[in-house]
């Protein structure tokens, strides 16, 4: 008889902060520069170089801690984590082990069985490593230190998650909070947010934790779900076979949908952490924390409330719009431009999200300008185009941020409102379709739809559907 197993999951999430400069030097963090151009003696580990802490990094770290209900350590320090690897120019990483900046917080996620708290063990600041580029031609590796010294916070959760759904919910919540704070753009695919999954299994009902494995740097939500499923299955099967689970780091290959143990580096995992003598501690005052609390931007719950009160949106719509900061921003700007919040909401929630799913991007992928969406809404309101036409125009706005006014003019999409012209076309349609006419008159309402469709086709979809319906009905009832 097979036993019931429970999966225990904890996450270590690394987030690249959105400061302009690196954590310990004045080099730019801007993405995409040529290799080794955003570098200086500090972030390349030159002899005699010294680190100096970027205040903005500390403030972002504290802001994230405050927003995740953490306690802020009033006295916090940096420690050196010593290990040799080429992406690490000093062969030690400046991190925080003994006195991290935040600890003991939580976020709330929605699960099938209600709200659940996922504990945050600690949050600390550290510097990112450089990039290793594998050179296929020469079987060597090339090192680029542009990313070395980019500021990171590491958010370490308690092992409170039990399913991959909970993991995704937790990550989405964290991402939303951090995006709302403006502390990072949190893009998994671009590496500004990275999740390491620690997973173990144990017999349901037992207290003792199983041996856990770590899976690093899985860079999409889908892959994370697969990885969790795969590892849960692998560990459970081992235990059921009477084997043990080895504590190790495993690499998840989403193409093969399997993981394997990473080759152990010829390295003891003995990091010899000790306080960095080059960096004085940070002392956080109550006033500073209060100031940061005050400066906290409007977060998701507040915004959701406001959307319902100010724009009279239903709660469900407000929830969707505020689930992503970028989406909320587009909504608010569009509403401000056109003065039609409910319209703006509708377009974004229905057509907008549909196109996102179709193009496999999340709401962050909406790259059009609110000004253009606003113009579209005005065109509809003014009767210049009908809703059917508007849908295809919206698709142009979504895909290439087309200016709707220009597009409508270029493609001659204006609704025709000439009643006489419309009556003529309808009379022709009725004459061409006597069967449908008699069907309608004998009670078959469906025939109306056919006739409307025929009329719209004849009009090249430029007719206003309401007018078509009205006039058709008038003509049909004339007999």
């Amino acid at each position, binding site marked *: 008889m097979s036993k019931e197993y429970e999966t225990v999951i904890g996450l270590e999430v690394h987030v690249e902060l959105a400061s302009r400069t690196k954590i310990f030097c004045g080099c730019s963090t801007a993405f995409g520069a040529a290799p080794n151009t955003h570098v200086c003696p500090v972030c390349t*580990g030159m*002899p005699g170089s*010294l680190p100096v802490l970027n205040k903005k990094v500390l403030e972002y770290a504290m802001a994230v801690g405050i927003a995740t209900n953490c306690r802020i350590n009033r006295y916090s320090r940096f420690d050196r984590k010593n290990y040799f690897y080429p992406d690490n120019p000093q*062969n030690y990483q400046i991190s925080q082990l003994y006195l991290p900046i935040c600890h003991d917080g939580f976020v709330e996620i929605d699960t099938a069985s209600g709200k659940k708290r996922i504990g945050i063990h600690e949050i600390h600041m550290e510097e990112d490593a450089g990039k290793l580029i594998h050179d296929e031609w020469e079987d060597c590796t090339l090192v680029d230190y542009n990313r070395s010294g980019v500021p990171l916070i590491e958010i370490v959760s308690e092992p409170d998650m039990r399913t991959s759904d909970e993991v995704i919910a937790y990550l989405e919540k964290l991402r939303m909070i951090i995006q709302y704070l403006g502390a990072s753009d949190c893009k998994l695919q671009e590496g500004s947010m990275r999740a390491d999954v620690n997973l173990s299994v144990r017999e349901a009902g037992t207290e003792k934790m199983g041996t856990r494995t770590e899976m690093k740097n899985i860079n999409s939500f889908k892959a994370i779900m697969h990885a969790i499923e795969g590892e849960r299955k692998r560990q459970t099967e081992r235990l059921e076979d009477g084997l043990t689970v080895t504590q190790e780091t495993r690499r998840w290959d989403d193409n093969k949908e399997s993981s394997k143990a990473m080759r152990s580096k010829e390295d003891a995992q003995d990091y*010899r*952490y*000790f306080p960095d*003598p080059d960096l004085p501690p940070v002392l956080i005052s109550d006033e500073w924390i209060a100031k940061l609390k005050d400066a906290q931007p409007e977060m998701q719950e507040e915004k959701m409330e406001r959307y319902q009160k100010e724009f009279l949106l239903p709660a469900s719509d407000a929830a969707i719009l505020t689930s992503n900061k970028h989406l909320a921003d587009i909504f608010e700007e569009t509403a401000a431009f056109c003065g039609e919040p409910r319209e703006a909401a509708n377009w974004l929630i229905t057509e907008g999200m549909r196109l996102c799913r179709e193009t496999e991007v999340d709401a962050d992928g909406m790259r059009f300008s609110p000004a253009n969406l606003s113009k579209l809404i005005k065109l509809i309101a003014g009767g210049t185009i009908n809703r059917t036409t508007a849908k295809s125009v919206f698709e142009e706005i979504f895909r290439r941020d087309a200016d709707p006014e220009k597009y409508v003019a270029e493609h001659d999409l204006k609704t025709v409102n000439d009643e006489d012209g419309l009556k003529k076309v309808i009379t022709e349609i009725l004459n061409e379709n006597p069967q449908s006419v008699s069907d309608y008159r004998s009670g078959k309402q469906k025939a109306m739809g056919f006739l409307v469709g025929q009329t719209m086709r004849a009009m090249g979809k430029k007719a206003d559907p309401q007018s078509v319906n009205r006039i058709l009905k008038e003509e049909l009832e004339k007999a």
Partner: protein
Amino acid sequence: MEICDLTAAELGRKIKSGEIGVREAAEAFLDRTDKTDKTVHAYLTIDRKSVEKRADEVQEKIRSGEYDSPLAGVPAAVKDNICTRGLKTTCASRILENFVPTYSAEAVSRLENAGTVILGKTNMDEFAMGSTTETSAFGPTRNPWDTDHVPGGSSGGSCAAVSSGECAYALGSDTGGSIREPSSYCGVTGIKPTYGTVSRYGLIAYGSSLDQIGPIAKTVEDCAAVLDIISSHDPKDSTSTERSYGFSKSLSDDVRGLKIGIPGDYFTEGLDPEVAKAVTDAVDVLKQKGADVEKFDLGYVKYAIPAYYTIADAEASSNLERFDGIKYGYRTKDCEGLHQLYKKSRSEGFGEEVKRRIMLGSFVLSSGYYDAYYLKALKVKALIRKAWDRAFEKYDVVAAPAAPSTAPKIGESLSDPMKMYLSDIYTVSVNLAGLPGLAVPCGQDSKGLPVGIQFIGNCFGEDKILRAGYAFQKEYPYRAPHLTEKEAR
């Protein structure tokens, strides 16, 4: 008097008045170096052409008034663990044999902005690890007073260069006595300022919580003048402190009422009796001039060295990890794979003493030993600091020897590293507590080798120790060695 025998202050005045030209001064020191450095080997790098060019440039700027510092135009040497842009900086190690920094240390920039002509880089113990300059990968420096003897270390090259008149003054660095001990062995004056006084930016780190750059010269007046130039609150160094400067202003011959304490627990059987006598005689001189002298027990004396070596080596093991053959420095020619690259480059590039300290440092930080060794050492450091605090509640200045003996013979020390470490007994606790320490020549032993006295002050108490040193030096002025005397013997 020959140019090389002038003090830096005197030379500065004569250059300012036009009596001596900048180029003339630089060439005088370079010519002297040509004569004596074959024996002394104080320098590792001299770029004569650059020196001449710079001298001319400085002369022009003095004429135009752009350089008006009291030491403008005065030629100086820089210890080879202090980065100088465009000039090879090796830390006397094979692993940096051809390293040419593209940036200068803050202290060097400040010297250059004051019109200094930098003559070259001086020899040292490899990565500042040693007390005799014998661990240099490029051969030892010899003591100008007796070339069979060491100059001390790790700033042996800088001290020997000053002593043999190969530069008007020099920069050294001090982590556990590396300015004060060689200064006393070479009969010159050297000061390690309060921690944080001189920026460490560009000083290639050994023990980050202990390192300081400091001047070495013929006189206290010279040291104070150089300290005025190189001290600053540097935003590039997070451990740089904001404090009062103006060291030259504190020079005064008046020591009436100055309270001087002598640690009785320093005068034990490890101390050479001739050194003990020279030091006590020197303190008497100050007593004659009106200072109040009293003996006291400092406490924790024997624990300073284990605490120091634990902390310094731990920090060093981490600071030296960056030397991996990838970004700069020596890279092994034959290796298969990354880990061999690291191991071979480092093992081939580092000398024995450096490897020894890196290993000990890695060990005391390793899992299982961190609490027993490293954390314990930090607690002992706290106790030592408290002991000094207690001393400075009663005294303005603490007077002590700078080393337990005069300069040993070359080749005597390296066979017994422990014995060599123990010779730091009077200097390391000053670094542990971050205090300023000034070494001033005060006598000679029966072999004719110099003895130095050390004046130790409270944190930011340079003014008091400079005053004590200045007043003493009025009664015991600078003496130069005469290399020819050795030949005459």
